[in-house]
């Protein structure tokens, strides 16, 4: 034991150096993380500051108006809110069932290369620029019919489809294989297992993915430019005509030379931002609940 006389538990010089480097690296990473949060906070603060003044009761209940004598702009964005709801509803009705079916097929039925090809195709569709989707629908639908909320919904559904399918696949992958085995071992067929066990077990998560896709679609602007932009100020719920929408209102109001319209644009931006934030937070909470249900 005598050879341990020089033994000490105090840090060596090299260890002190490592600890310093470690501290430095941690600070750098923390700064990066804080920067990401700062961006979100800055956007929220900027939009709230400039937009909150516009939020009156009229803003939500009245369409935009122009004073006949003075030419001053007023009113609200009721027509845009109604339009966005109709357009996004059209998109959801199309994209949600198809997206879920695609995901169920790829995750539960397809094998080998079919599965890989489908996953790749979904990723490619997800990467198509939204303006391209806009002119695509313009070319194949609007030219032969007319601009309408339905046409805009069609365009947005192409954006939502891969989002819904991919998120559904992720949720289905959370369902343990052992549950499928337990069902198969009783002689239950594959499709009954999927419909009666797998989908109910992941239902909350599937809806969460759908809701996030809705939030994403509600803010898209480019696909609406060619599909639902020649609009009136009337509040309408008719999907067969072109309807004004919140993102387009923001775009058009900010281009106008009228400061009152600028304020309206910020107000509209605040409405959109609030919608997206609330939906994101709620659906994340929902997903967490679903995950606990499966794992406990």
């Amino acid at each position, binding site marked *: 034991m005598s050879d341990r006389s020089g033994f000490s538990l105090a840090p060596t010089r090299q260890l002190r150096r490592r600890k310093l480097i470690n501290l430095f690296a941690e600070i750098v990473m923390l700064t990066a993380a804080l920067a990401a949060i700062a961006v979100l906070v800055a956007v929220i603060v900027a939009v709230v500051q400039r937009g909150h003044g516009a939020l009156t009761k009229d803003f939500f209940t009245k369409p935009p108006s122009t004073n006949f004598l003075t030419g001053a702009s007023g009113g609200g964005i009721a027509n845009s809110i109604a339009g966005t709801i109709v357009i996004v509803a059209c998109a959801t009705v199309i994209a949600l069932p198809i997206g879920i079916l695609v995901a169920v097929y790829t995750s539960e039925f397809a*094998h*080998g290369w079919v599965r890989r090809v489908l996953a790749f195709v979904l990723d490619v569709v997800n990467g198509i620029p939204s303006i391209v989707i806009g002119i695509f629908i313009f070319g194949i639908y609007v030219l032969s019919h007319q601009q309408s909320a339905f046409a805009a919904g069609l365009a947005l559904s192409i954006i939502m489809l891969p989002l819904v399918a991919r998120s559904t696949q992720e949720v289905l992958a959370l369902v*343990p294989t*052992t*549950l*499928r*085995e*337990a*069902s*198969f*071992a*009783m*002689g*239950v*067929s*594959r499709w*009954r*297992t999927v419909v*009666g*066990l797998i989908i109910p*077990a992941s239902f909350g998560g599937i809806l969460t993915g759908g809701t996030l896709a809705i939030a994403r679609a509600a803010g898209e602007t480019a696909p609406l430019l060619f599909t639902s932009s020649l609009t009136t100020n009337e509040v309408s719920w008719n999907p067969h005509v072109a309807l004004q929408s919140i993102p387009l209102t923001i775009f058009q109001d900010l281009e106008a030379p009228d400061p009152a319209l600028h304020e309206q644009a910020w107000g509209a931006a605040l409405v959109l931002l609030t919608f997206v934030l609330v939906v994101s937070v709620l659906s994340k909470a929902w997903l967490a609940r679903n995950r606990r*249900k*499966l794992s*406990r």
Partner: protein
Amino acid sequence: MNENTIDTVAPIEVATKQSVPTTHKETVFDVRQVAIFYGSTVAVKDVNLEIYRNQVTALIGPSGCGKSTFIRCLNRMNDLIPGAHLEGEILYHGQNMYGSGVDPASVRRWIGMVFQKPNPFPKSIYDNIAWGPKMLGMRKDMDERVERALTQAALWDEVKDRLKRSALALSGGQQQRLCIARCLAVEPEVILLDEPASALDPISTSSIEDLIHELKRDYTIVIVTHNMQQAARVADMTAFFSLDVHEDGSRNGILVEYDVTQKIFTQPADPRTEGYVTGRFG
């Protein structure tokens, strides 16, 4: 040195009364020259055995010897693994289970399985039992069916007051008995148990073993186990699987010996079996 350790290994106690009638044994599975492949790799081969009605048949052997692979072939669970296939024949009551025109789902409907880790559905205790029968169209008298299955699995008294609660809140041992009850609820003929107690504590393990003794009256049971004492305690027949290592380093499982449990543990015919059951790997 090595010889000494072998001498100190306690002999395994075998249940004294073996209920193997030498005559009138009805064959449920007739396994003929079966080899199982994953892709082009042989997992286990040269399996020939008959599994008898209302008997407990144990499959024992070292890790990787293919006993789990083999039991999963007895209800075509391996069909779910891409690339897995089987050569040879498995006759179930004389019918080729892997013949053309046989639907794996209808095979599994009669041959249930309980897995290594308890895998209850994320549903209530009641729905865990009722779901399978419902899916198979056995909707009549569901409450009685659920009670009967839970009683058979020796779980009824523990859960009868909380049937609507989540099955995931049960203890591991209770969950495993729930999985057995779930399997019984669709009235199978055979129950395959793939190391059903390996994730459980000794007390839960012993309750599962008691249960196996009870269930033998009504069902044919095949059990894979790592635990030789367990095989000796519960099984009438025992199959010993081992690893066959070739000169090129490749290895595959083989069936070494299949006999009455008492014989396997007290006077095995094959030296490899003797090596394994006495604690020396051969």
